[in-house]
């Protein structure tokens, strides 16, 4: 898992990115589709983008304040852990 946080000097927004490797692109895609449907609870101040490249799930946040960013990243990590535990216990995925 690789992370990277910085303030973009141009926009003044906080950026945070996270890369999560999965055993295969299939599992990375399942995680993406499980984690994407629920939008951020607050109306503004933060955006979150999820993408999959091969077996890597990448998440990129952009937020106005560190406080908002922390809450979103924390809850995402809780959700991610649950999805991975579910895959460990009830996977691997059946053939499509």
């Amino acid at each position, binding site marked *: 898992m690789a992370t990277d946080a910085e303030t973009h000097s141009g926009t003044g927004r906080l950026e945070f990115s996270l890369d999560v490797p999965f055993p295969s692109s299939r599992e990375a895609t399942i995680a993406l589709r499980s*984690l994407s449907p629920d939008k951020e609870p607050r109306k503004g101040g933060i955006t979150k983008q999820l993408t999959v490249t091969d077996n890597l799930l990448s998440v990129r946040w952009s937020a106005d304040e560190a406080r908002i960013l922390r809450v979103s990243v924390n809850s995402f990590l809780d*959700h991610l852990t*649950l999805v991975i535990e579910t*895959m460990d216990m*009830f996977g691997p*995925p059946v053939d*499509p």
Partner: protein
Amino acid sequence: MTVVIGFEGSANKIGVGIIRDGEVLSNPRRTYITPPGQGFMPSDTARHHRAVILTVLKEALEQARLKPADIDCVAYTKGPGMGAPLVTVALVARTVAQLWGKPLLGVNHCIGHIEMGRLITKANNPTVLYVSGGNTQVIAYSERRYRIFGETIDIAVGNCLDRFARVIKISNDPSPGYNIEQMAKKGEQYVELPYTVKGMDVSFSGILSYIEEAADKMLSSGRCTAEDLCFSLQETLFSMLVEITERAMAHCGSQEVLIVGGVGCNLRLQEMMGVMCKERGAKLFATDERFCIDNGAMIAQAGWEMFRSGQETDLEDSWITQRYRTDEVEVTWRD
């Protein structure tokens, strides 16, 4: 044969149930119980659900003696309820649906209660009183909707009971409502409380404020006991519910009442409703705590009806929602 697995976790209960054509194959459940004087907060409740949901899912499959391949559809609670607990349950439902290659189905929690009540009691077309910690509604079916005839204009009846329990530090184990019910049996004196039926609707927040304010003084001066207050609160709240249920029955010309939701397993409420029904020549249907209180099978049962009528939820549309009214759902499985 159609087998549906249902995931429920919109409040402090987490349950997974499996239904095969009207038969409950398994329905394990856990409850997040807080210390006396404390309610359950969304993030703590979600943490509880995250810690146990996979164990409960494993139990549901084992008790039903089924493998994932035997399941036809994965149903979960889309709303209404607390956001964080709802997301927890939806995440697992989405993940297993994809792992197992099964369709997903988002279910309205209130519809789950109604369909489970209908399945268990065989009530055909009842006027439904749905009473729980988060909801209080009188519902009747008409033209492909479960229509709300009356409801609370502020807090739910169960929320009023739970918060009263917190004030006088009644235990939350197994539930505050159950403990109030037991204490009320020992009440000897009726303490007059506000009675707030407003047309077809009810209001409980004023009653709660009144009894919160009065409880301390009355108990410390020895004017009444905690048992008297439990008794008086139940009698007042339940009378209001019976009144609006009876009015809805008169409106609809209905001769059946079905009580669902967590408060629905209160035997005193069932008794009072039974008296009203007897006077009108109507029939009362109620279930016990296994199916009244939030559980996974009720989501599986509503999901079973929806799935059989051709509904599915795409993953991108599977977001949860804290507000989701009973009458938003088109009932595609009834005439």
